């Protein structure tokens, strides 16, 4: 039961990350490899506040989301002008810089050792320490994030991002403010990733830089692509499938040293297979990056 609750908590956190990624990749058709960076910013801000100022969970959550959203604004503002593949390089740069700060700014982030001894979440005076209790918190947060994503995925707002995705020139001609919509999606997405980071901090009660590398960003992209980019529930399906996959490998008795590599190979094959044969993912309706009219 504890084990099942733990798996569900992990799925919940990745579902939130997937939902955040889907706002940019699925709705605006842009690819960012900085999602783990924003995820980490949320995690570190919350951990720092909790350890230094003993501020409550809700305040830390809010501050983290605002900080990451602000950072998303600073990064997204100029870099969203770049062509799609150069946006990948720009967000990659941001990801490397953020990871460098996590690893090397030892006085604030604890350096490679990370931060530990983070106090548990208190709700109505009682501490949540069991995975089952935490599952309720994660599920509630994921539901709120899903609700926000569904608001953004609904007319009139969604028409603009989807129009950008299909044909940004036509969208601009029709008077849609393409740049502003892209930027607001990017900012909301960054804040959402930070929320997942805060949850991770309070769940693990320990963080270190290794959880926020570019490989983590790639994993989040894989969740969205495999689940179905542009579909509201696609990232949730993706998170369930990709989090359960290594557990299945473990049940099959593959030694854990090799399992990590085999898991990555399977993710890689899943990405290639999706691009080749099922670009819309498991349940998506939109084929990522396919142009409606061949050039």
């Amino acid at each position, binding site marked *: 039961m504890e084990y099942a609750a733990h798996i569900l908590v992990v799925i919940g956190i990745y579902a939130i990350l997937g939902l955040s990624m889907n706002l940019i990749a699925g709705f605006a058709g842009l690819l960012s490899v900085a999602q783990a960076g924003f995820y980490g910013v949320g995690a570190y801000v919350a951990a720092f506040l909790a350890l230094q100022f003993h501020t409550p969970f809700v305040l830390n959550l809010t501050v983290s989301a605002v900080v990451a959203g602000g950072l998303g604004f600073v990064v997204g503002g100029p*870099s969203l002008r770049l062509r*799609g593949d150069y946006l990948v390089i720009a967000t990659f740069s941001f990801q*490397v*810089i953020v990871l460098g700060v996590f690893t*090397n700014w030892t006085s604030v982030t604890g350096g490679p050792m990370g931060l530990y001894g983070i106090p548990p979440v208190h709700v109505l005076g009682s501490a949540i320490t069991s995975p089952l209790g935490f599952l309720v918190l994660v599920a509630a947060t994921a539901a709120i994030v899903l609700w926000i994503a569904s608001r953004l995925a609904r007319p009139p707002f969604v028409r603009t991002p989807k129009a950008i995705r299909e044909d940004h020139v036509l969208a601009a001609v029709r008077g849609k403010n393409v740049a502003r919509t892209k930027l607001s999606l990017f900012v909301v997405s960054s804040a959402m990733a930070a929320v997942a980071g805060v949850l991770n901090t309070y769940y693990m009660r320990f963080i270190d830089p290794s959880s926020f590398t570019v490989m983590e960003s790639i994993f989040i992209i894989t969740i969205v692509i495999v689940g179905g980019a542009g579909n509201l529930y696609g990232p949730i399906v993706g998170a369930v499938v990709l989090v359960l996959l290594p557990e299945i490998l473990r049940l099959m008795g593959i030694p854990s040293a090799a399992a990590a590599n*085999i898991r990555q190979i399977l993710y*890689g094959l899943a*990405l*290639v297979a999706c691009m080749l044969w099922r670009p819309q993912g498991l349940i998506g309706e939109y084929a990522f990056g396919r142009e409606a009219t061949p050039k």
Partner: protein
Amino acid sequence: MVAIYAVIAAAVYCIVGLSFALCYATGRFFDFGHAAVLAVCPYCVLFLTRTLDFPLAVALPVALALGALLGAAKELAVYRPLRVRHASPLVLLIASIGVYLVLQNSISLAFGDDTKTLAFGPVREGFAILGARITTIQVAVLIAAAIVVSGGAFLLRRTRTGTHIRAVGESPPLALSVGIDAPHVGMLSACIGSALAGLAGSLIALDVGMTPTMGMRALLMGVVAMIIGGSQSPLGISLGALLLALSGALATQLLGSQWQDPTAFFALLVFLLMRPQGVMGKLTLISNG
């Protein structure tokens, strides 16, 4: 002294950058699979020299041939079928991340994740030049970079193949309309680029050792050199590589070596956002919408 080490670092970035630029010229997308090819080759050299006792002079060409073959294989198996379906550069990029994951983790499974070295014999002190100590390998790196840059410039400017590569890079449909077999040329430049990536990887492994994930950092440094230089030409990449290495050396001096990579990427961000056309002004990165 710092300048000498920077030039050596620049030489490596330069070979990687040029190898990537060759693939990028005709492929026109960011191929993360290139990073995996870069790492596969030194591991092939390791296997041939350590397990099969081949001399390095035999092992290296074999490894480079394997690199070229791998470049052709990923082109045939993944990228070409995607192009046929009119996939955008982003789709190719995502597929290439998949290719990278598969290849890199296969190396990890076969050889383990620890740092391995190709260095032979006892460590010698190296030559003293302008206060710096330079090993034989580092001299080889400099010579290789000089050959690759001049060879690359010759190939692209003076040969029929080079003209075809540049033509396909400018516009595939136009190249096709004047009778150039664009897929064939693309395949050829992918092979040459992949072999060069293997050379860069083997040189890095000989100098400082190798890990299965070595390709990612090397590839990014090559790409950064290309973007800062602002041109896919060998000269532009050399210029970018030099600027990148000097900024890295400066960061090491002022902030400490752990800030070298963040500084390099900060420089890249500044370039992407302030001067996206690079120093030479020959890249177009801004989307038209």
